[in-house]
């Protein structure tokens, strides 16, 4: 069962995404700010991290940057979900290593599809590396 970490300071969004993903068979852990997210990331490796950009303590861009710089979490799939729509922030998120971006309000079906696609990409990459070895 894939592990997903969802980071958002809006408790309603957090609960809603958790319910939607649980229904689809994902194991979901939530964090309401950057600090809590870092603590969780230090102890567990997740398959996918879904993060908002505006977060207390550390923003979403910092989360993305830290995930990509950490050897343990380098290959985690990262989806940025935010109501911030300016190009510069989105570009910065991708530059730091985000895999996907969704603008709020989101479509639940679209989020699920993107998660599945990221997991499929990750699995095929792993298979390729194993075969090469």
């Amino acid at each position: 069962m894939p592990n997903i970490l969802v980071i958002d300071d809006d408790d309603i969004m957090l609960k809603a995404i958790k319910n939607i993903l649980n229904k689809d068979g994902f194991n979901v852990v939530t964090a309401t700010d950057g600090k809590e997210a870092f603590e969780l990331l230090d102890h567990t490796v997740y398959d996918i991290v879904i993060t908002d950009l505006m977060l207390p303590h550390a923003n979403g861009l910092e989360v993305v940057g830290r995930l990509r710089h950490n050897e343990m979490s380098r290959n985690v799939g990262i989806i940025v979900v935010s109501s911030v729509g300016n190009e510069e922030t989105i570009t910065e998120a991708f530059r730091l290593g985000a895999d996907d971006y969704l603008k709020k309000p989101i479509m639940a079906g679209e989020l699920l599809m993107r998660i599945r696609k990221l997991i499929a990409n990750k699995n095929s990459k792993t298979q390729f590396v194993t075969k090469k070895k």
Partner: protein
Amino acid sequence: MWNDLVDLLFRAYEQFSLLPLFIEIALIFIFVAIMATLLAYTSILFRRYNGYVYQKRLAHLSPVIEDLITEQVLLNESLGKDIMVDEIEFDQQAISNKLFRKPAVRQILIDTLIRYRKNFRGEVGELLRKLYIDMNLVEDSFAKLRTFKWETKIKALVELTQMDIPISDSMLLPLTNSRNPTVRAASRNAYIQLSKNEPFKFFDVATEPILPWDQLEMFKIITTTKDITIPNFSRWVSYSNNKSVVTFCLKLISHYDQQSAIPAVLELLNTKDHHFRSHAINCLGKLGAEVAEEKLVTIYTSQPLNCQIEILKALGRIASGKHLEFLKQEFLFSNNFDVQMNAARSIIKHNSQHSRLMLNEIMETTNEENQLIVRHCQNPLIKY
């Protein structure tokens, strides 16, 4: 006892009337100050108590409401099965729970649904809307719209807009001319978002001004709302008597680059109000209306400073090259610094071989101050 109290007050008044005037005034002042402080504290306590009760109720009800939304919307089995949202049915027993009949609970329910709607669109967003309609919360919002309190009216407008519920013109149009500027702004914003076919119909009946801040808000809504029908704004430029509507339409014309509006905007150059004229000139410049250049240069000398500056800017934006000599003359012989600066910027903006040669010639022949102006205007970091 009552007689004793009256007697006491009477004696106190007798004592008070014997006091010197300044003492009397001081005592009255102290009495008023104490009463005002007591009143203020009572009001603060009352508000805090109400807030506390609301928070307590919210803490108790939020899980129940969130569970209802989760079960009926987020985890609805019919989602993602190619069933039309309108055909999805909710569990009637769950949504007709007695708890959801209380007005305070219904308000919390509406607020929660709106928070969800801000986060979800697509099927989930539509199903949230359906729940709002099926639980008859739409009637609560309409009831609020009919109250006299302006704050409640605005709340209702926000709710109906967020839930994409159409409001009849007979109800909404009068609000767009409300004497309260906040209600006016909220209802105009709601009209644009809710009326997909004629979102600007309220311009026809607008008698109250659209304030600059409201114009900004409205501009944001117009440019970000999906599926909005954009009309030809020249219609209001030609016929509206409301100056703020015309100036706002001029901004929209230039934003949507409505070239067909140029003749209507040109007509505005004959208006007596110079602020109005400067907006029209600005719009012509942004539209790149080459046809207006000749007229702008002709009227230049009879214009006040703000219009002259707009004309110089417009010539730079249109940049046909026909009036470079005029810009050069203004730069070299004007006594006004703003005029010189805008003339120089407009020459630079042409960015043609002729304009570059002209600038070189100016730099070689003019005085040091003018050279400094040109160098300043050539700085790419200074926005034009």
